[in-house]
């Protein structure tokens, strides 16, 4: 199937309005005849579910947590971008579009990025009206801070808990709709398959994680807001239960998966402290506003950070990138940290960290100001490491964070399966090969609240005569049987290798060869290792308990089974792209001083992969056109 992104006609700045002018909408009286399933209760899924319910559709929302308020959007710290230009610093929609396309290393879809920047303005209004306590100036007006990869202040924040506050606003809007009765929520339910009838997405098979019952649910359209799959690395900034299973099962039912290998490795997470570790806690990028990153100039310098004088410190980001300094984009900052650590300048007992130092800022602004800006982050740091970061520098390290790749969607956020939509991190469209900080909350929220409710109506306007979708059909029978068979197969393994151990090993393979720095030999090795590990999983995984009732081992095993397949596609995708761009750094394609070399002639496309029933994947290219921005070499020097 040829890819059609369905980008509306007209100048860039008019495309979204042109789309809205011409799209079909559904009569309010007909909306209550239409069922929509939303998977995921976070900013994208929850936002979509609440907004669709407000419009009058019958909405069912599914999530595996015990409450939608726990979705992983909650963990985003630093902020949300919007082109409000409240600072009078020259910001506008075009500049935000420009920064985002450049930050993504010219591998995103122009029209989508521009629309995201346009909608950002409304989003701040929306969230403020919902009661989000954004940071304020003493005048009472909204305050801003700066994030990486930009030269203006366009980031709105609620201390270091911006994601939590936006999510709670969205959760409260959801709860309101539950009360009104337009929305039914299914907490502790996990989607295990998508049901496709006559080529259209018509429902899902879910497992009730309390009773263990497998259930069928039908709808006229299905929306996936299921987040990213960075947990594939085991050690990541993601929540323990975040997973790629919903998007992967949709992929196996025909949805193309785009740019799967583009994973953002976040430069400021806490370093791994030992083998037992389950998670790498993120320290917000906003800390780079006031923190300075350095390592000792001397290799294996064992002095305490306070004892190392200024002339023996290497502020390597300020040295290499004087224009942006500590605020270079994440991919650049992570690679630069890796370069220093590989060269023997890492700090901490495992030599796997760099310093993030607030001494200069505390001297200049006082401890109280730093406390008000980042207090909760310093507290969190102390709780985990037992170190007071007001007194000595934080130790930070790169960690797997965000999936720029995801299900391929067109301008309407529709996948290659008609009636299946993907919003937020689950889709691929807006960030190119590297996401800018504070654009994640933005994309999730505008996809869910402002874009999807307008585009899905174009599809649903053809469904008003369809009537209720039956779950008593061969397609539902077949999907349910496949799900039950897999559960049975997993429980029948009865091996001795704990699921988490296998996941850790997968993570090590992926972080070594399919993360910050990649080469052909390493990835061919990784593919073989993944295949071996997959065999070992299906032969020797230790999954105890049964399917009747809660069984967290069974849940983890199902997710890992999918990760073991996603991992291979990630390597295949990274092998295919013989250039360096954004987070995708191929060692074979770099300049003498270690900067990325793109190949616009051959690789200016999004790679959308089609599942070929387990026999390799078929590549479809969406060629990218840049008419409103000059494509140049990305430089932050």
């Amino acid at each position, binding site marked *: 199937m040829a890819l059609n992104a369905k980008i509306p006609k007209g100048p860039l700045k008019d495309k979204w309005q042109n789309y809205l002018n011409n799209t079909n909408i559904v009569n309010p009286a007909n909306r209550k005849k239409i069922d929509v399933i939303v998977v995921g209760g976070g900013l994208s899924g929850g*936002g979509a579910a*609440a*907004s669709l319910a*407000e419009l009058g559709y019958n909405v069912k929302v599914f999530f595996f*947590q*015990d*409450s939608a*308020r*726990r979705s*992983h959007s*909650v*963990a985003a710290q630093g902020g949300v971008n919007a082109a*409000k230009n*409240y600072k009078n610093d020259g910001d506008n929609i075009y500049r935000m579009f420009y920064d985002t396309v450049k930050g993504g290393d010219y591998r995103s879809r122009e029209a989508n990025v521009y629309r995201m920047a346009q909608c950002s303005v*409304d989003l701040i209004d*929306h969230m*403020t*009206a*919902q*009661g989000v*306590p*954004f*940071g*304020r*100036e*003493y*005048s*009472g*007006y*909204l305050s801003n801070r700066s994030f990486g990869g930009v030269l203006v202040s366009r980031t709105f924040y*609620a201390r270091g808990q911006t994601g*939590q506050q936006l999510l*709670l606003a969205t*959760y*409260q*809007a959801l*709860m309101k709709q539950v*009360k009104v009765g337009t929305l039914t929520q299914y*907490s502790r339910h996990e989607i295990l398959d998508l049901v496709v009838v006559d080529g259209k997405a018509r429902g899902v098979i879910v497992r009730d994680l*309390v009773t263990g019952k497998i259930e069928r649910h039908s709808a006229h359209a299905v929306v996936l807001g299921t987040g990213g799959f960075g947990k594939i690395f085991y050690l990541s900034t993601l*929540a323990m*239960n975040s997973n790629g299973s919903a998007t992967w099962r949709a992929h196996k039912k025909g949805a193309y998966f785009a740019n799967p290998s583009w994973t953002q490795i976040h430069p400021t997470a806490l370093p791994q*402290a*030992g083998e*037992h570790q*389950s*998670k790498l*806690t993120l320290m917000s990028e906003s800390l780079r506003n006031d923190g300075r990153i350095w390592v000792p100039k001397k290799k294996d310098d064992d002095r305490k950070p306070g004892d190392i004088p200024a002339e023996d410190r290497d502020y390597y980001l300020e040295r290499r990138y004087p224009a942006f300094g500590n605020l270079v984009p994440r991919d650049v900052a992570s690679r630069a940290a890796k370069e220093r650590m590989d060269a023997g300048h890492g700090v901490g007992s495992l030599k796997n960290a760099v310093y993030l130092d607030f001494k200069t800022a505390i001297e200049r602004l006082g401890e109280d100001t730093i406390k*008000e800006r980042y207090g909760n982050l310093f507290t*969190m740091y102390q709780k*985990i490491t037992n170190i007071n970061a007001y007194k000595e520098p934080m130790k930070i390290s790169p960690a797997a964070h965000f999936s720029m790749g995801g299900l391929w969607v067109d301008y309407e956020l529709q996948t290659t399966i008609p009636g299946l939509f993907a919003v937020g991190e689950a889709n691929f469209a807006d960030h190119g090969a590297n996401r800018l900080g504070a654009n994640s909350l933005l994309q999730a929220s505008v996809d869910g609240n402002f874009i999807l409710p307008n585009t899905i109506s174009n599809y649903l306007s053809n469904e008003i005569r369809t009537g209720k979708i039956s779950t008593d059909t061969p397609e539902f029978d077949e999907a349910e049987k496949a799900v039950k068979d897999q559960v049975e197969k997993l429980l029948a393994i009865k091996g001795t290798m*704990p699921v988490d*151990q296998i996941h850790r090993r997968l993570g090590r393979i992926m972080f070594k060869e399919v993360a910050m720095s990649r080469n052909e030999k390493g990835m061919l090795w990784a593919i073989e290792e993944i295949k071996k590990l997959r065999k070992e999983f299906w032969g020797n995984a*230790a999954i*105890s*308990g049964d399917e009747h*009732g*809660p069984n*967290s*081992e069974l849940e983890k095993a199902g997710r890992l089974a999918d990760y073991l397949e996603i991992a291979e596609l990630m390597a295949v995708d990274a092998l295919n792209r013989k250039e360096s761009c954004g987070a995708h750094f191929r060692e074979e394609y770099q300049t003498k001083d270690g900067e990325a070399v793109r190949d616009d002639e051959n690789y200016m496309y999004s790679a959308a992969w089609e599942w070929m029933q387990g026999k390799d994947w078929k590549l479809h290219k969406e060629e990218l056109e840049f008419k409103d921005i000059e494509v140049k070499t990305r430089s932050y020097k």
Partner: protein
Amino acid sequence: MKLTLKIWRQDNAKAKGKLVKYELSDLSTDMSFLEMLDVLNEQLASKGERVVEFDHDCREGICGQCSLVINGQAHGPEGHYTTCQTHLRSFKDGQTLNIEPFRANSFPVIRDLKVDRTSMDHIIQAGGYISSFTGMAPEANSIPIHHNIAESAFDSAACIGCGACIATCKNSSAALFMSAKIAHLAKLPQGQVERAERVVWMVNAHDDEGFGSCTNTGACAMVCPQEVPLLDITRMNYEYNRSLKTIDS
């Protein structure tokens, strides 16, 4: 280090539960409390035994999904920590730890250490929101809010909804949890229109869900991971009385 764990095992809400003893050795003080439970579960799974079910997700203290009462204290001994942020350095080598679920009438046990906290969702459903639908909002800077008021609203809004306050309260009251939302929205100009009805609806829902009454012992605020101010409960009482007057008129 070595630890002896006595963990609450219970098949479902109706089954009878009991404490089961497990010995763990070779633990590191750098381990988080939940990583220690991961170690135990890996051992159980590789022996083919059913693992200990417990709730957890973000493991950085913000999602509110982790729970547990450790040696009688919700979220463990540190105070103002979540269980996931508690590390083994808080315990002594050779110590015995009793690990139980959050206990309250309104939190039925699902299995082992997992409990059902949807009763807290029901309180929010009753009125813990501002009914501004997508598309309705005015320009954000048209509502100036004093810096200190926004900060104060944040202090209340920071609640992660974990339920430790309820598990700690001798009456199983959800007063701190509920008052945090009431205070957050009552402090802000955006929350004024629904202010009176909100508090009455929420307090009624709280009572309907079987949560107990608040007797102002303040135990809740001692364990709250986000240090939600105890004063919010006083504010809630003020709001409640104020609203009865407002609604009457």
